[in-house]
């Protein structure tokens, strides 16, 4: 039985989210032209296989050294001078496409003493969704995936839904809200 912590409940972003959120639509985690930077692109797809045109994808990640500019990181905050933001917001377009321009984050020390493989945390919201869903993007071919404590809790048959695959200008990561290919989502 969960105690009621008294938090404010979530509600849907509704169909008109773009008027409130488009102003901060900025897919650039790192500035254009950053050496080694690439796109992660994908579709947001509903249970009928239809792309979602009224959705939003936000990502948050460590820098390539696995550090954050944040006071709660016990290793210390790393102040930014290089334009690295860690954050990106991409509103889906009419075809349900989204994308973020970024660099691969470093690995992170994990709570259990192990190591978290490079990953992005992802928030997905849309009309029809009464709260956000959260997933993670990992990178195909990264040796560190095998020992990642979060990835290893996911049913092996579904781990592939969390791994971005190489594409022409970076990586491909489609998000399926339902269906045979339903993306593995996390309770955060």
């Amino acid at each position, binding site marked *: *039985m*969960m*105690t*009621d*912590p*008294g*938090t*404010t*409940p*979530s*509600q*849907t*972003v509704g*169909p*008109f*989210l*773009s*008027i*409130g*959120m488009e*102003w*901060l639509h900025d897919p650039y985690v790192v500035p254009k032209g950053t050496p080694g930077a690439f796109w992660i692109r994908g579709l947001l797809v*509903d*249970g009928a296989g239809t792309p979602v045109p*009224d959705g939003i994808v*936000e990502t*948050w990640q*460590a820098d390539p050294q696995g550090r*954050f*500019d*944040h006071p*709660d*990181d*016990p290793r210390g905050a790393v102040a930014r001078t290089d334009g690295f*933001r860690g*954050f990106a917001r991409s509103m889906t377009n009419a075809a349900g496409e989204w994308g973020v321009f970024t660099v691969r984050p470093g690995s992170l*020390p*994990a*709570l259990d003493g192990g190591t*978290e493989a490079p990953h992005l*945390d992802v*928030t997905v*919201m*849309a*009309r*029809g*969704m*009464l*709260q*956000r*869903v959260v997933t993670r993007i990992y990178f195909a071919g990264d040796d560190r995936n095998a020992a990642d404590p*979060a990835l290893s*809790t996911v049913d092996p048959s579904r781990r592939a839904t969390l791994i971005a695959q190489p594409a022409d200008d970076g990586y491909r990561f489609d998000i399926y*809200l*339902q269906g045979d290919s339903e*993306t*593995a*989502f*996390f309770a*955060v």
Partner: protein
Amino acid sequence: MTHLILPRYVRDDGVHPPLNSPDYRSSALRYPKKPLQLLPHGLTEITGPALGHQQVGELDNDLTRQHEAEPIGQRIIVQGRVLDSDGRSVPDTLIELWQANAGGRYRHVRDTWPAPLDPNFTGVGRTVTDSEGRFRFVTIKPGAYPWKNHHNAWRPAHIHFSLFGRAFTQRLVTQMYFPEDPLFGQDPIFKSVPDPKGRQRMICQFDLDSTEPEWALTYTWDIVLRGTQATPFEGDDNNDD
């Protein structure tokens, strides 16, 4: 290597609407059908972006001063604090807000119901909370509007709020409602929140003391994000270390 000690954010899943809420018809194809996997709060989850300081302009919290003239409608002030569930304020955090105009129409290409647009109202604002988590918007009271969820469906007047908090775990998008709205009972979005106490927390309060004489009615609304379990709840299963 020293053991990593991080804040642990309270899990409040029971407060929020189920993603599968059949009365809200649009949810049918947009909720995960497979169980969610519990994600421990590591470094990515307990950190988050500090947004807004560069982007938010001085007048962005006043939706009545974005055009040549004032918008039509009841001028209101919406103010309050952003707190966490431990009672601590959440300072310096971005709030985004959007809403319909007084006639219940959004300035959005897909909103085509026959209520007039107001050339003096965009319906979009933002602000950053102060050092005590306080925020203040000046706007007009939004109207109710019909939608096609069920026969004779109307959304109660509401304002959309988007918050980041200080960590990825605290991200919240919600809607603020107005007291004693007769449309609550038929609204599947409002009623998707399972607990009546939770529903009450989405409703602002009319605040006569803060109402500005001969200027604007004030509504007060505090927004509560997840805290870090600084004091474990009694009966909480915290015996794992």
